[in-house]
C-alpha cells in the first residue's frame, strides 16, 4: 500500500497556485497535514480524492496514476470533505444505504457495516430521524460514517473534528489511531492537538508548498532547547509579542506565562521547557516566512 505524490501543483484562475511542487511518499499510518488557512491542504486532499485534477505532477496509488485511472483508487477511498451536505429528507440509515450503493457495496455487507458505523459515531438513537434536523456535529458524524463505509485503504479527512464536542473529538481521534495501523489516513486540520494525538507523520504547509515533512518526534527535536517559559506582567505582553515569537500564553496569579521559541532566552528569568508540536509548527512556519521576507 503506497501513495506517491510527485511534484503535484494546482493553478487556479488568475495564475494563482493553490499548490506547488508537492512531493511525498506515504505508506500505512496517519499523516497530519498542518497549515494555516489557504495553505493548500484542501487542494491537495481534493486532488488525492480524485475530485480535482492537478495542473502539473502526478499522484500514484500503488503505482497507478490516479488522474488517468481514478476508479482503482475510488473503490478503496474514503473521503470526508471540509464542506459537504446531506439529503435532508433521508434518515441516517437511508443516507448511508444510498452512499453504500454509490460506492458499490454488497447490500447485506453494507447493512451490517451501517449498523456498526452508527454505533461507532454514536448515532444509533437518531438513526431514523431525517438528516435535515441534525445538528452540525451530528452531520459531521454522518460524514465520518460514510467515509468509512467501504473499509477504505486510503482515508482522507479534511477538518473532521469541526463541530464535534470534546468527547466526540477524542473518540474520533482514537478511531483514527486505530485505523491508521492498516491503511493510509490523511488528516487535515489546523488544530495542532488533533494531529499531535494521532499522526505518525506530519506535513507542514504554507502558501501551497510543503515546508517540512517528518515524524512528530523529529519535529520536536528541531526545537529542542529553543522553547522558553517566561513570566511577564500583563501590561508588557504586547511589547513582548512584538519582539519575540510567542507560541502560547496562560494567565496565572503571578502574571502571564508566555512560551517563547527563541535561540536565546528572552529574559534572564526565562526557563527552558520541553517543546510541544505547536511550538515546532510555529517555528517552522515563521522561519519560512522570515526567509521569504528576507528574500
Amino acid at each position, binding site marked *: 500500500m503506497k501513495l506517491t505524490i510527485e511534484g503535484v501543483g494546482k493553478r487556479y484562475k488568475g495564475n494563482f497556485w493553490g499548490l506547488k511542487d508537492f512531493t511525498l511518499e506515504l505508506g500505512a499510518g496517519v499523516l497530519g497535514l498542518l497549515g494555516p488557512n489557504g495553505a493548500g491542504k484542501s487542494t491537495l486532499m481534493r486532488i488525492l480524492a480524485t475530485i480535482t485534477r492537478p495542473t502539473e505532477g502526478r499522484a500514484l496509488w500503488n503505482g497507478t496514476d490516479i488522474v488517468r485511472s481514478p476508479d482503482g483508487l475510488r473503490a478503496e477511498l474514503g473521503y470526508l470533505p471540509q464542506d*459537504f451536505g446531506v439529503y435532508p*429528507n433521508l434518515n441516517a440509515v437511508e443516507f448511508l444505504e444510498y452512499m453504500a450503493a454509490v460506492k458499490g*457495496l454488497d447490500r447485506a455487507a453494507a447493512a451490517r457495516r451501517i449498523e456498526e458505523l452508527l454505533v*461507532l459515531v454514536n448515532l444509533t438513537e437518531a438513526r431514523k430521524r431525517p438528516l435535515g434536523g441534525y445538528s452540525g456535529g451530528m452531520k459531521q458524524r454522518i460524514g465520518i460514517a460514510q467515509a468509512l463505509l467501504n473499509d477504505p485503504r486510503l482515508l482522507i479527512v479534511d477538518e473532521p473534528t469541526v463541530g464535534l464536542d470534546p468527547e466526540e473529538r477524542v473518540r474520533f481521534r482514537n478511531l483514527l489511531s486505530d485505523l491508521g495501523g492498516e491503511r493510509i489516513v490523511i488528516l487535515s486540520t489546523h488544530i495542532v492537538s488533533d494531529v499531535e494525538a494521532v499522526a505518525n507523520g506530519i506535513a507542514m504547509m504554507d502558501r501551497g508548498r510543503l515546508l517540512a515533512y517528518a515524524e512528530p518526534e523529529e519535529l520536536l527535536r528541531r526545537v529542542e532547547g529553543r522553547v522558553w517559559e517566561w513570566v511577564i506582567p500583563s501590561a508588557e505582553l504586547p511589547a513582548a509579542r512584538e519582539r519575540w515569537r510567542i507560541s502560547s500564553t496562560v494567565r496565572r496569579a503571578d502574571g502571564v506565562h508566555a512560551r517563547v521559541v527563541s535561540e536565546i532566552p528572552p529574559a534572564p528569568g526565562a526557563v527552558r521547557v520541553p517543546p510541544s508540536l505547536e511550538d515546532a509548527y510555529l517555528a517552522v512556519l515563521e522561519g519560512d516566512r522570515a526567509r521569504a521576507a528576507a528574500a
Partner: protein
Amino acid sequence: MSQARVLWHLMRADFLERVRRYSFLLTLGLAVYLGYVVSVGQLKLWIDDSRGIYNSPWVGVVMAMVINSFLSIAGFYVVKGSVERDRRTGVGQILATTPMSKPLYTLGKMASNLAVLLAMVAVLAVMAFAAQLVAGEDTRLQMVKLLAPILVFCVPVMAIVAAFAVLFETLPGLRGGLGNIAWFFLWVGLMPASILTKGSWDLLGLGAVSADLYRQTALRYGVTKHSFVLGAMADERGSKIFHWDGMDWTPEILLSRLVWLGLAVGLALIAAVFFDRFDTARSSGRVRKPQAALPEPAEAVAGPAPAIHLHPLPEGARRFRFFDLLRAELRLLLKGQRWWWYAVALGLLIASIAAPIQSVRSVVLPLAWLWPILLWSALGTREARFATDGLVFSAARPLGRQLPAVWLSGVLLAVATGGAAVLRFALAGDWTGVGAWTVGALFIPTLALTLGVWSGSSKLFEIIFLVFWYLGPMQRVPALDYVGAVPAAVKAGMPLAYLAATALLMAAAVAGRKRQLARL
C-alpha cells in the same frame, strides 16, 4: 444610517451580486434575442388584418407589449431566488442580526429584482430603436413617443413581477418548484384578464392599447368587431397598414399605472409579514420533522465511549450492483412525498383506466405526466443543491453508474405514473400510441436530467416543461407535443423527432456531468 441608505445598499449589493454572474449575460442575451425577433418583424402587433406603420410610437407600443407579455413570465423566473441565495449562503443569518427591519429587507429585494428587470427592459428599449430603423418604413426617431409606452406600461409590470417574486420566496409553500408552477398558471390567467377587462385588471396594458387601436381602426375601416394578435401572420399579403400617432395618454391610464406601482410596493410589504427573517425554526421546508437542530443523543454526553474497532469488510463485499444503486436513487427521488401526492397520482392512474381512450391520450396522460414535475426537476441537481457532490463523485465511475441510475429512476417514475395509459393503448391495439408513450416516458426525464445537470437548478426544467405541456398537449401545437396527444403531431412523425431529441439530450447530459466532474 437612514432607512433610504439601507434600502439603497441592500438593493445595490444584491444587484451587483447578480449582474456579475455569467447567468446575467445569458439573461441579457435573452432580451437581445427578443428584441431581434421584433426587429426582423417575426413578432408584430395586429388589429384584425391591419397594423401600424413602423414609426416611433408604433414600435414603442409593440415593444412595450412584447416586454409585458414575455418578460412578465420569464422575468419572474430570472429574479426569483434572491432571498433563497441569502438563505443558502448564510448572508441572511448575518442580516437578521442587524437592526434592518423586515419590510426594508423585502422592499430592498423587490428593488433589486426590479433593477435586474429594468436592465432587460433597457436593452429592449435600445432594440426598439434598431427595430424602427431596420423596418425602414418611417425613420424619423421620436424619442418620447418611442419610450413613453415602454416606461408607462412596462415599469409597473416589472415592479409587480419583482414584488411577486419576493412574496413567493417568503411564502414557505411557494418558495420552491410549486411557486414556479403557480406563477405560470397565474400568468396564463393574466393575459386574457388584461385584454378582456380593459380596466382594473389590465396589468399588462393590453386592454388600454387594444382599446386605443380599436378606436383608430374603427374610424378608418369601419370595423366594429376586432381581434388583437401579438405574433406572426402566415400571410401578410393584403394586410392594411395605417399611420398611428401614439397613445392617447388619458389620466385614467396614467393613474391606473401608478396604482399598479403602489400595489407592487404593497405586495413587497405583505411579503414582509410572511418573511421568517431566516429563522430556521419558523420555516417549514420539505422535511416534516422539526427543522431546528435536534438535541444530541443522550449517550453522546453520558457514559464511557464504546470500544472503537471496525470489522473489516468480508471478501466480495465490494461488488457493485446497478439494481442496488437504482433502488437507492428511486428512494431518494420519492422520499419526502406526502400521502396526497400518491393519492393524486393514483387518481390519475384510475382515470387513465376509466376515461375514454381519446381523453386519456389528450388530457389524462399529459396531466399524469405533469404531476411528478417537481420530482423530475430534481434530477441532476441534487448533488449541487445539497452539496453532496464531493461525496458522490469521489465514488468509482460516477458517470457510468450513478448518472444512468438517476436517469433510469426518472424513467421508472414516468412508467409508474403513466403505466395505466400505455396499457390502455396496448389493449386497444394502438401501437402508434404505445410508441409515442414510450418516447414521452424517455423524453421527459432526459430533458429534466440534462437541464438539471447543465443549469444546476430545477427551475429551468420546471419552466421549459410547463411551456411544452401548455402549448403542446394542452394548446395542441403539434411541434411541442412530446406525448402523442395531438393526432396531427403523431402523423407528422413528432414521436420520432422527440426520440432523436432524447438521444441528443442524453449525450448533452453526459457531457454536462463530465464538465461538472472536471470543474469540481
